[in-house]
């Protein structure tokens, strides 16, 4: 599965959406997401989730959606 996924990503010759990749490898989007999360953990690729974009939109730590993640990872806010 993983080789097929990596080949499809390479063959796309640029960025590829989760939906398109799921169609190409014939897997369920949610299952593919699980596989991509694993591959991301292994540093083979990077996955940007739909919600991730929306988290990055604030001007200060007080209203930042990342704040919890930052605190959990020991990186406190900067402003």
């Amino acid at each position, binding site marked *: *599965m*993983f*080789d097929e996924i*990596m080949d499809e*990503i*390479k063959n796309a010759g*640029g*960025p*590829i*959406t*989760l*939906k398109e*990749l799921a*169609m190409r490898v014939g*897997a*369920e989007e*949610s*299952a593919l*997401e*699980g*596989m*991509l999360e*694993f591959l*991301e953990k*292994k*540093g*083979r*690729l*990077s*996955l*940007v*989730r*739909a*919600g*991730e*974009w*929306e988290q*990055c*939109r*604030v*001007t*200060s*730590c007080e*209203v*930042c959606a*990342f704040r919890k*993640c*930052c605190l959990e*990872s020991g*990186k406190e*806010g*900067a*402003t």
Partner: protein
Amino acid sequence: MASDEARITVALSGNPNAGKTTIFNNLTGGRQHVGNWPGVTVEKKEGAARYGSHEFEVVDLPGTYSLTAYSLEEIIVRDFVILENPDLVVDIVDASNIERNLYLTTQLMELGVHVVVALNMMDVASARGINIDVDLLSELLGVPVVPTVGLRNKGTEELKEAIMSTVKGEARSRGIQVNYGKEVEEEISKLEREIERDERVSDEILGNYSSRWLAVKLLEEDEKVEEDVLKYSEPESPLLRQLEASRNHLFTIFSEDIETVIVDNRYGFVAGVVREAVEREFEEPVTLSDRIDRILTNRILGFPFFALFMWLMFFLTFYLGKFPMNWLNHLMRELGNFINTVVSSPAWLRSLLVNGVVGGVGSVLVFLPQIFIIFICISILEDTGYMARAAFIMDRVMHWLGLHGKAFIPLLMGFGCNVPAVMATRTLESDKDRMITILVNPLMSCTARLPVYALFTAAFFAANQGTVTFSLYLLGIILAVAMAKLFRRFLFPGESEPFVMELPPYRLPTFKGTFIHMWERGSMFLRKAGTVILAGSVVIWMLSYLPPGVKYGSPASIAGKIGHVIEPLVKPLGFDWRAAVALLFGFVAKEIVVSTYGALLGVGESRALISSGLHQFFTPLTAYGFMAFTLIYTPCLATVAVIKKETGSWKWTAFAIGYSLALAWIVAFVIYRVGLLFGLGR
């Protein structure tokens, strides 16, 4: 297997949102109590279920996608299944997402526990045209499979019946083991043998784990299992020697870590089961979002559309912004007149209020409508889901730079404010990508530069304000691209990994949502005006007013003297000492560049007067060079602070300041000198 009389424990496991709680409620009714798992704040629910004369205890385990030891939930589930040894695990599988859910099932089967699969949300699966051959699925997995619809309490009695017959040993429930291929299986067998031979390990651990599971987990380098084994196995024991030999052998064969090989095989097994037992009646429907994406994320059309949206944003900002801006300007003028009338003496106080406060802060505040409009535009682009597409289409450019596609997200955020944008680089896994993105981020034109552009474009490019501003934003992007390429080549060499993106569907932005985002960011600007810009304006007023007796803002004032010291550095760019002072104080916050001119010119009561005043010191060519310098030079103080915090290095912070200053000087010099060559000096 428990006898009829003994208390039977059934654990409910499943992926998050598979309907586990609903099934738990259906099984137990009201007979349940809620507590916490020992030592953690994860909720633990227990209850009792009855089937005929039998009663069994049901434990609701936290939702999890797998049984690795990465998250707290995974560890809780794994420890409960291994250490508490329930009689049976009911794995709740979301039938509409069966492929993802079955991954956990394979891991539960691997643990060697008795498993019953509750195939939940069958109604949702049917509605999506997903037909599942339940009997075949059961045969392929080797465990009972019961279709359920938790929300309608369908299949609950059948599930209880399956639980009881499994507990009684009437149904096969250990599950089929995933075959990892000849090479891996051989090593698993060798390890199993050594595990069973190692007396201490088999005495202390094997009561809990199956030897196969233990062998697989050791190969996967599961930290928790490894820790347990190391506790009991002697150093240099045959088991540990075999483990090292097996890992090395498999690495030689597969050239990658063995965990990846094992996980890949599990997914392969699940894919095979799904291919056999699941049939999809129809393809995923093409949604409106898909149709729009065919154009907006198209390899060729995507870029012109992106440029069009950006240009439109600046056009609207200046076109719509000029009306409320004129009203605010009028208000500031009236305020200046009012202060002049009411405060007749002392002269210094009148000068402070009119030139320092109204001139300094007021000259920035008049741009508030434009700031709000640009934030409305950015919010709309984000809320509709377009910004995610912008990041997607820019990935190609990012990769050409050797940067990660994900890096475009913090770069785009830089259009709003560089401070959170630099912080957002935390989403980048690679330290090199992160460092490059942090260093080039200040080149993205934040809204603090907008008042400078608005003032100078109104004074020198009134007919093409939007286009000239757009060109400055574009200049920032081009420079960011060029610098990223240079940094990748010379400072942080390396490759970026490929990028897969989940695009959100397009949505209509709501008025409330857009207003909240606009206010959240716009209010920061207002706060800044009342604090940093006010303080900066007062300082500049003092420097322009002192020493006592000199003409306000003249070369004899302290500001004039400071300006004259720095002037030689900016003279080759066509700037005078006033520009030097404005740029010096703009280091605190870029808006102060505008308030400095308001204060220095002593014409705080009128933006029109500042504009006409600027004509004494700038030509359109030097004005453009000045705007470019403001865009590029040293990031503001808050951004510098956050760069220091995020890089954790004074060296890189100093580099960020130094290179941007040098780059600003070079670009402004080139603009000025090339402009002169083409006769644009006047």
